[in-house]
């Protein structure tokens, strides 16, 4: 593994300054600043269409940006040094439907240069042991999403970017996955997880509340509730929206 000289362990996992993204004439992110500390699970919450996916894509380095810098683990986002250190799960499962679960993971493991035993390890982590030989196209939507997640866990990345990984999963599975995310963070990984389900917020170490391309809040769940005097994150979000009604995208 390459060790970038700029990537000391005290630096944040992600540092974003003045990020502007425009898509098709519209400004999606009008100028965003953000630090995400290492070894934490940070939840990115906000309504559908508020720019969550665009922000995550910028961190992975697949989003064309208009201004600003995105530094990930000490290197510019998307640089070659990061490609085996950052795992990314897109909202729609990005795996081969015509291959089996095992074939998918064996291929991605070979591309990453991950150990040969890695596919079995991640299949177990997402609870798909019984489906190693099943073609992905025959799995349910939730199972397919977990294959996509498993592919991102290959090679034990230091940073995991997960775009709505728990959509369509039953409550038990959701609980298990959030437990897995917490375990990964305890082992030193950094996770940035988006969701439009506010009740998943309590599972996170830190919360980012986003609306219309702006961050309304960046704090721990407890501090957020204390600051807004709200009883749950959904009410806190509403309180914050009322406090900043003028903040709309330029």
């Amino acid at each position, binding site marked *: 593994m390459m060790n970038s000289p700029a990537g000391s362990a005290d630096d944040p996992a992600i540092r974003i300054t003045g990020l502007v993204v425009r898509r098709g004439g519209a400004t999606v992110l009008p100028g965003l600043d953000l630090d995400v500390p290492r070894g934490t699970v940070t939840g990115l919450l906000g309504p559908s269409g508020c720019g969550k996916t665009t922000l995550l894509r910028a961190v992975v380095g697949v*989003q064309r940006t208009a201004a600003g810098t995105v530094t990930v683990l000490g290197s510019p986002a998307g640089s070659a040094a990061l490609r085996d250190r950052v795992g990314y799960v897109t909202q729609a499962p990005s795996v081969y439907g015509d291959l089996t679960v095992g074939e998918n993971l064996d291929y991605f493991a070979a591309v990453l240069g991950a150990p040969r035993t890695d596919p079995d390890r991640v299949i177990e982590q997402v609870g798909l042991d019984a489906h190693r030989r099943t073609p992905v196209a025959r799995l349910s939507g939730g199972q397919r999403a977990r294959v996509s997640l498993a592919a991102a866990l290959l090679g034990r990345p230091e940073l995991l970017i997960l775009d709505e990984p728990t959509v369509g999963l039953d409550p038990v599975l959701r609980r298990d996955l959030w437990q897995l995310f917490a375990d990964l963070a305890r082992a030193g990984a950094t996770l940035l997880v988006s969701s439009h389900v506010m009740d998943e917020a309590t599972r996170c170490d830190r919360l980012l509340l986003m609306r219309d391309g702006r961050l309304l809040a960046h704090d721990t769940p407890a501090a957020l509730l204390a600051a807004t005097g709200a009883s749950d994150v959904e009410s806190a979000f509403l309180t914050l929206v009322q406090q900043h009604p003028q903040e709309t995208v330029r």
Partner: protein
Amino acid sequence: MSAAARRTLATARRVLAQLRHDPRTVAMLLAVPCLLLVLLKYMYDRQPGTFDRIGPELLGVFPLMVMFLVTSVAMLRERTTGTLERLLTMPLGRLDLLLGYALAFGLVALVQAALASALTIGLLGLQVAGPTWLVFAVALADGLLGMALGLLVSAFAATEFQAVQFLPAVLLPQLLLCGLFVPRADMAPALRVISDVLPLSYAVDAMGRITARSGVDGQVVADLAVVAGSALLALALGAATLRRRTA
């Protein structure tokens, strides 16, 4: 083995595994050109000279078309399902990916060219003055060209409907101008110039020369080089269309 070679081979293995899960596509890839050649043989049953002239030329055209269709749709799927984006966030070079595809589909083109050549020369009794292996080599180069063009046009298609439309848009003009219908020398000067820059013309020229003359003609080798060079050029252009950052 270098990391790049490992990733290329893994990609080729993966593409072949996808084909293995789709036996109907494989059967059509291999059988359709053969069936069309059989049809051609019996179309010209009363004029055996015509089959000897057109047979080899179409022997090069059919693999080109089939490979074009299959690879353009395969690559388009890679783009639309998000797997391309995932791969580009991983340590996979654009060339690793394209060469992996080229290896896998090149292998299919090889089997397809071998089957079609053996069928036309063996069972259908096609008379070829030049060496048989050269017929096979040109058929293979045509298959590779079709594959490379298919990979390239997939960048300009947003849906599978559009991808399929590129067959008439990109290949039919080449087919009309390649000398199969009207000898290239007899075309209007403007058409002749267009025909001169289209790679399929060289593929058909090469086949024509092999049928007519014995031995290895220097001109055939030159034609073959143009076809192979065009395939490489299309692959390189295809690599340029694989963008890591998109809007």
